[in-house]
């Protein structure tokens, strides 16, 4: 992605989500005359990684799940 300003640090946040894909199936229930299930199936956050890039350099920065502190 293009950066508007490379002189300063940025924060990269990555989240891995898991979700039951049954939202459309809930519509079956209404179509079959069983009533409307008024609910949004929530996702579950499996992992989240936050990384502060610091001042941008060409040096690659890496962080993974479970690492305690950002760069």
């Amino acid at each position, binding site marked *: 992605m293009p950066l508007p300003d490379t002189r300063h640090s940025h924060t990269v946040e990555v989240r891995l989500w898991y979700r039951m*894909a049954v939202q459309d199936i809930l519509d079956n229930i209404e179509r079959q005359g069983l009533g409307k299930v008024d609910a949004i199936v929530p996702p579950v956050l499996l992992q989240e990684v936050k990384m502060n890039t610091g001042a941008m350099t060409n040096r690659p920065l890496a962080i993974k799940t479970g690492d305690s502190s950002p760069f």
Partner: protein
Amino acid sequence: MKKPCLPERFFAMPLTRFLLVFAATLLLALALARLLPQQTDLSVDVERDLPLYSQPFGKARPFYPAELTTPDGKLINWRAVPGARSCGECHLQETLEWATSIHAISDLDLVYDSTVRENNSASQAGKAHGLEKGRWCEGCHNPLGVLAGAVTPANSVQETEAMEEGTSCIVCHAVNRAEPLAGNGALEMDINGVFRYGHPALLAAAPSRHAKDMRARREQPLMGDSALCGACHTEIRPTAVNGATPPMNLQDTYDEWRHSPYAKAGVQCQDCHMSREPAAFVAALKRGETPKKTVSHRFVGNNYLLTETALPSSLLFALRGGSPPGLNRLYDRKTFMAELEKTHQSILALLKEAAEVEVTAKALHQELRVQVAVTNAGAGHALPTGPLDQRYLWLEVEVKDRFGATIFHQGAFDAVKGEEDPSAVRWMKEVRDIHGAPERRHILFDAHTLHYTRKPIAPPPNRPRGLPRAPAGYPP
């Protein structure tokens, strides 16, 4: 001294005394045996007992397209099916744990129930013998109903509580053998055979015999073997459903495990998913330890929705298909909800133990390049697994400037619409209809092709450290 008369001398002889005691004991045993339940003929003759039972796939395969079978190949007697409540009279904690599981509602939950109805009656393939074709689904979701002949248009089988309990105690505890690669419920179940041994008089007289008859794990190794689970966690749509060839593989969880390092180390499905602390068990495997095996009957898997105690209880019980068996008799609602919350938390913890994410960022000229690696770090099968049109993973990536303002955002979830950014990186399998359109209501009867946005992530390639290698040739 008076000499003993002949009868007195006769009874004084040691051998005679022994024979008398022996005869008395024998008579008493015979009398008690008369009090025990007699072996009754429980076999079901379709022509005689269920003349309207529909068998469009031939009389030799009364349960087809389910791969279930019985020792004699005949239907089971619905009167012989013990319900979980009767097991709970003695095995309360196990029954309570099971009641919170997805196994307990496999036939009841509204998501399944509405889906199978849609397949049976509103699909193209369902127009001819839709209900009978539905035995393909019901074989694993409602095995007792299929075996008893209740899944038929003109049902004359009594619907008891036991018959509605889905994958209940008796389903696993009456299995003689399993064919996991055949899938679709390829289990031989001796329900009629175990009926007699569930009688309270026999339980009291010989509990060890009861343990043997009910296939306690120490008596029946299959109970602790992935093959038992694999018979249902392998789903293959047979040609009989819609005429399509070859059969369509829809769930390969057992096969994924079979080729995984966990199988090579002899780690079975039950070891993780029936552990009292599944996430801790997996975490220990990941650390290279040899964790102690424990047993619960929560069958912790992925379905966090139908165990979500944060939902209004009326909605939760509606989605689960009603109140659990045993409620108000074996336990109260407060106890059940506390157990359900434990199951829910176990599911969330296990899910989170499965995946790891690594992020690499690199500035290049005026660009920030972000690379994300998602690995399957803990599951002994692919991630995700199971019916992959019904669960998926996706990535959300957000970049903020030094003031905290978002300058890039991909994969955000819209909690009002209930959908994520369509440009997100997703691991999902799409079922597509004959026109190539995505079908998101699980109408597998009409599924034409399968399309992966990204293939499921394979298990880690190396055998968990600290675990011995499984015997040569295992798994089959």
